[in-house]
């Protein structure tokens, strides 16, 4: 190789390296958190899975938050001590990994000095992050972090029990599934064989099975005819589906998330496994279910907290905003929960009477925390009235969605019953 060729090669290598570095820096960039509240902003942190296995849930949730923050800021911001202050939303990506979420949570609390930390989606990450928090408010022996944090999902039962600084706006999953099973039985029952499939390496799915579905079955003196497990990243579901089919399952409980759901349902289609009812959870609320699963996912029913077909015009506006930004025709519930969550936090901040100064941060956080705990009769943009219960879970009505005609159709509402 000549000297010139070597120099050219080195230049190419350097350019390649610089390019790769630039790509990673751009891709990994988040809003800088150098400024504190005293520059006229209120700092909120958002920790969500924006890449990796939780993208389907984290990205829509984060976008819901962004839309809410932009709307609040466009109106001048939040009124603090007689002065309007804009929100600065610092975004972090936990990739649905506890080991990534925990240091990000600490960063948000200590370096970014966020007033409130919102997030995250996966219960296993939320539990780990909230493990940093003081368990009981005012416990002098517990020097855990004292910053209010609100997750807009983390469905696993009992997540808020980790700390009194933790709040959740997602719905009561055991109640959701009890209602869903009851409604399905009333409309399509009786069923002979109830079987379940659980994503065994995913905390929420396991908890949903044990705390929600199984308890509902036990209340009916029903023992599952078949129970199978798979993992998030499995690629072959032939054995599990065959077992479910052999058990003559007519009520199939699918406690699993989108990737495994798609693979399993495609295999069900291949094997001709067609139960009368397939009941799933929020893990099925992702466009991949219909894009990747196509016909195989038709008929799956799952509970939802917010649906784009709700009557209030603001819901349609949010769905349009979401579509404008993502080109997605369907708005999963996570967008609405993210949007609504920021609005709830906004109200809590406004009512808290904070000063938003560096020296008042600890007191401000406490005031906001107490306001979140005291939420009563909050009027949601989605038309419902919300209350915070003693477990720091927002109590909200349940709706059902059914995958029909390649779309996520609102299927049952508390006021109108079955819609089709």
């Amino acid at each position, binding site marked *: 190789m000549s000297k010139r060729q070597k120099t050219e090669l080195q230049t190419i290598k350097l350019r390649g390296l610089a390019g790769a570095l630039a790509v*990673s820096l751009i*891709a990994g960039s988040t809003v800088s958190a150098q400024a504190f509240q005293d520059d006229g902003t209120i700092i909120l942190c958002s920790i969500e899975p924006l890449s990796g296995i939780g993208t389907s849930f984290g*990205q829509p949730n984060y976008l819901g938050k962004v839309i809410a923050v932009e709307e609040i800021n466009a109106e001048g911001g939040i009124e603090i001590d007689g002065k309007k202050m804009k929100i600065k939303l610092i975004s972090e990506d936990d990739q649905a990994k506890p080991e990534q979420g925990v240091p990000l949570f600490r960063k948000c609390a200590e370096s970014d000095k966020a007033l409130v930390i919102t997030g995250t989606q996966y219960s296993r990450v939320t539990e780990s992050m909230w493990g940093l928090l003081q368990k009981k408010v005012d416990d002098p022996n517990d020097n855990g972090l004292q910053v209010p944090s609100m997750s807009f999902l983390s469905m696993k039962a009992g997540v808020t029990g980790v700390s009194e600084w933790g709040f959740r706006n997602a719905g009561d999953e055991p109640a959701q599934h009890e209602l869903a099973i009851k409604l399905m039985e009333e409309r399509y029952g009786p069923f002979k064989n109830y079987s379940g499939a659980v994503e065994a390496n995913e905390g929420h799915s396991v908890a949903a099975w044990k705390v929600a579905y199984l308890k509902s079955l036990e209340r009916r003196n029903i023992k599952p005819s078949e129970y199978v497990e*798979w993992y998030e*990243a499995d690629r072959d579901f*032939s054995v599990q589906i*065959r077992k479910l089919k052999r058990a003559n399952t007519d009520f199939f409980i699918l406690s699993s998330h989108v*990737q495994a759901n798609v693979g399993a349902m495609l295999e069900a289609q291949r094997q001709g496994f067609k139960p009368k009812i397939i009941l799933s959870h929020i893990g099925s609320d992702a466009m*991949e279910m219909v894009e990747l699963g196509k016909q195989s996912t038709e008929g799956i029913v799952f509970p939802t907290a917010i649906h784009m077909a709700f009557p209030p015009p603001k819901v349609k506006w949010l769905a349009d905003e979401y579509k404008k930004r993502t080109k997605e025709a369907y708005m999963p519930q996570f967008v609405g929960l993210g949007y609504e969550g920021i609005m709830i936090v906004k109200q809590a901040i406004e009512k808290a009477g904070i000063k938003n100064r560096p020296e008042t941060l600890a007191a401000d956080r406490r005031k906001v925390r107490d306001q979140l705990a005291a939420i009563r009769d909050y009027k949601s943009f989605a038309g419902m009235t919300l209350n915070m219960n003693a477990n720091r879970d927002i109590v909200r009505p349940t709706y059902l969605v059914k995958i029909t005609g390649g779309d996520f159709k609102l299927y049952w509402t508390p006021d109108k019953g079955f819609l089709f």
Partner: protein
Amino acid sequence: MYFFAIDLTQTTIDGLLFGSTYALVAIGFTLIWGLLRILNLAHGVTVMVGMFAGMLSATIIGLPFYLGILISMCAGALVGFLIDRICYRPLRAAHELVPMIATLGFWILIEEVFIKIYSKFWFRDYVPFANPFDGAGLEIGQIRLRGDYLVTLAVATLLVIILYFLIYRTRLGLAMRMIAEDHDIGSLMGVPVGRVLTTAFLLSAAYGGAAGYLLGMTANLAGPYAGSQAVVKGLFSMILGGAGSIPGAIVGGLSLGVLELQSSFLFSFAYRDAIAMLALFLVLIVRPQGLVGKRTADRI
């Protein structure tokens, strides 16, 4: 009992068919191990890149299956070239652990960057991978052979035959076998060691690319973590069959496929991987060289 026998047979066949993709991944590992005695931990990247190249060609552009496989192999080979130039060639003189760690670094770096780029383009965890053979199949009595699994096995078999031809019927293969015995002697005999090793990286990675295509196609989806999963399965298959042995990689891959599905069927889904690991331990205790590896240093 009748259904049990049917399901047992069906599960064995599914496992063998499914395991052929593991065998392809293991072949990529074993080629480099046999020649260089390093674990190319970046091999998973070739699977991931092959999968996405295949997804782009099959789903986005709509190219036929055989062209998609070729494109995936080329994309994988390109990654193999980079691995050789970045992780191996500059570190040839270093201890053999050094290039192995370099491949680990390469794997993590590329996967992280890829995930970030992926997230900018797709608002999804996974993207659809067109599977023209989905729904097709062969019925033999009560046993059903999935069409896409049969195609996978056919492609894997063809690639293994080509590899055997290359290794045992060409000058390149002769050179590879000589280098596998001893680099220095090979060099003294006039073998262009560097060039042959680069070819081995290209070949190994091309097989990884093909495995990526087939894994994506049979799952009907492509995801950015496919490489990490493939590394675990491929390494396991290689060790189970016999490190450095191509027949070992094939036997290891097929055995792993059967082992995974049968342990789910016969014992427990929850302990599937634990049972597979236990089987590996037992095999290694009885035959430390793997199922078909030779006790003596049999390199390729």
